């Protein structure tokens, strides 16, 4: 699968300094030893509940946050060590589509200005304004907007159209990797399908890799080749989409899958919903040992000790961080 490794994240941690919490703790561990790999032309789905650190990871990969420990490598190079021209060249390779199509576009700039903005910094890409205008038109076409939309302002577009502008902007520098931070969660169902199709088409045409972040399981399932499940700053399960969705090994993944409502009431009525107890613990003082144990229905005292390193029993690249990983067949048995 990962024949051509593009991005490798090893043991990355990031904590934020925040107001003291109830336990007098003021370091919020947003990321805690993250390992990820992304191959060329691949889509890696990242799912997890709100606040588990998905955006922080994305921002770290975009160099917007500096990790406390761990390494990030793009094609073997640590971008945090780059300076000036090398850094600028690196930035072209990695671009991001933001979660909120409303907040991520400056309301005072026209669509064309937004798409052309990266070139104002990367001046060598297109030297004449004619070239730029032509490229803006190309990009608009690529994302399915009309040339006449170039001079309209973001507020004159619908959410889906705005997200297309955001995607066009991310493509302006011709990146190898596009990090999509919940690109469709602010969009309506009918529009969401349009954007997902667009991303899909672009990958086929341009061969870009995606790190696709979402909390919507059905969306991840639709777009991703591989999936990583995140819980409280840690990746608790990774594997191919079929494996993870078909035979979840971490209890959390299983709960997540079961909690998601589905259209088919028929299926639903057969399987009982796992209603997790309690809420997501505060990342200010996460539980010791396995982070999921406070909500896990099969937790024992053992779970207060650190969970074993991800095991991959079937050799399918399907790992889970759990003392009592579920057997893939358990789902059927229940």
């Amino acid at each position, binding site marked *: 699968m990962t024949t051509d490794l593009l991005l490798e994240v090893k043991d990355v941690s990031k904590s934020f300094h925040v107001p003291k919490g109830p336990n007098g703790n003021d370091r919020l561990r947003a990321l805690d030893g993250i390992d990820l790999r992304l191959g060329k032309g691949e889509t890696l789905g990242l799912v997890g509940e709100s606040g588990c650190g998905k955006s922080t990871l994305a*921002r770290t990969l975009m160099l*917007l946050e500096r990790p406390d420990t761990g390494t990030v490598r793009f094609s073997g190079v640590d971008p945090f060590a780059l300076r000036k021209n090398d850094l600028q060249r690196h930035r072209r390779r990695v671009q991001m589509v933001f979660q909120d199509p409303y*907040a991520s576009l*400056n309301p*005072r700039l026209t669509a064309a200005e937004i798409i052309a*903005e990266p070139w104002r*910094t990367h001046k060598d890409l297109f030297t004449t304004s004619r070239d730029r205008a032509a490229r803006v038109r190309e990009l608009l076409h690529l994302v399915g907007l009309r040339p006449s939309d170039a001079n309209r302002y973001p507020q004159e577009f*619908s959410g889906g159209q705005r997200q297309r502008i955001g995607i066009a902007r991310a493509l302006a520098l011709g990146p190898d990797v596009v990090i999509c931070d919940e690109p469709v969660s602010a969009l309506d169902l009918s529009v969401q399908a349009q954007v997902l199709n667009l991303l899909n088409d672009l990958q086929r045409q341009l061969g870009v890799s995606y790190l696709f972040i979402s909390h919507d399981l059905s969306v991840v399932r639709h777009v991703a080749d591989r999936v990583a499940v995140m819980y409280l700053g840690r990746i608790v399960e990774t594997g191919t989409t079929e494996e993870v969705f078909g035979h979840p090994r971490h209890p959390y993944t299983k709960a997540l899958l079961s909690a998601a409502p589905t259209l088919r009431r028929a299926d639903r009525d057969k399987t009982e919903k796992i209603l997790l107890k309690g809420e997501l613990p505060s990342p200010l003082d996460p539980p010791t040992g396995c982070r999921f144990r406070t909500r896990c229905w099969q937790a024992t005292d053992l779970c207060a000790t650190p969970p074993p390193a991800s095991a991959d029993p079937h050799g399918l690249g399907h790992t889970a961080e759990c003392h009592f990983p579920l057997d893939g067949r358990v789902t059927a048995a229940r």
Partner: protein
Amino acid sequence: MTTAQETPPAPEASKPSWFRMLLADPLAFIAAIVLLIVAFVAVFGRSIAGETATNGDLALSRLAPFSTDHGWQYFLGGDLLGRSLLGRLMVATQTTMSVSIPVVIISLVIGASVGMWAGYHRGWRETVAMRVADVVLSFPSLLMAVVVLYIFSPSIASIIAILAVTRIPIYLRTARAESAELQSRLFVDAARTFGTPSGAIIRRHIVPIVLPTLLTVATLDFCYVMLAESSLSFLGIGVQPPDVSWGLMVAQGRDQLRTQWWLSVLPGLAIVITTVSANLLASWARIASDPGQRWRLTTPRRRRAARPTIVLEKA
């Protein structure tokens, strides 16, 4: 390829025109006219007012107002030196404006740039900028005035300098607060991901958004500056004769309040009318430029006073 969007572009023509919105608020409309007149007088007043504004005739000293026996210039009466009060008011308009406008602009530019810079970078820069603003705010501005006027001779430039310094923190705080908020916005993050330098981000993304707020603050501050200038005149360290400002006229005329009331009341009225007009126009502009509030100017009058809740009374 995916299908192109079919939505028809928003009909531009139906966007409310500024002029129509101005007409919809009669008070703001009058305010705009008043300010236009003030602006006109500030530019051309000196030449319209003519001789009688500067060279008095002691025989007409303390002439009572509202009579045209001595020509239209003396319609508002004469001052102690027998100059026409109307003419003086017109000449004073220019000085008043040439003090308050530069003050507002200078403090706006300095306060806004520092504030945006501090707010964008956060951290120590923000702390230092805010503490310096605190210092300026808790400093006796009169001491500052005396110092400046002592070191430099009292002139319009020094008055502008003093007032500008004391007003900088106002803009600094506003700009800082806004840009601190804006710097965490996604579109700023987006710009960062292209490697855009911070100066360019501030110029491209922060300034255009912070500016309208700052301009509103500036309009309101305009009033404060005129008053501050008149307070300086009261203490004798404001605009110096033979220059004349509204504030100076009010200050000098206060002794005659009981005998020649018009000497201080009329310039005072000029200050009040101008600032009230500026305020009215500013609050109109705030509404007109805010899509969430604009309806107040475009909905028929009957509905405007309606309660915030729609509760139909029993007919």
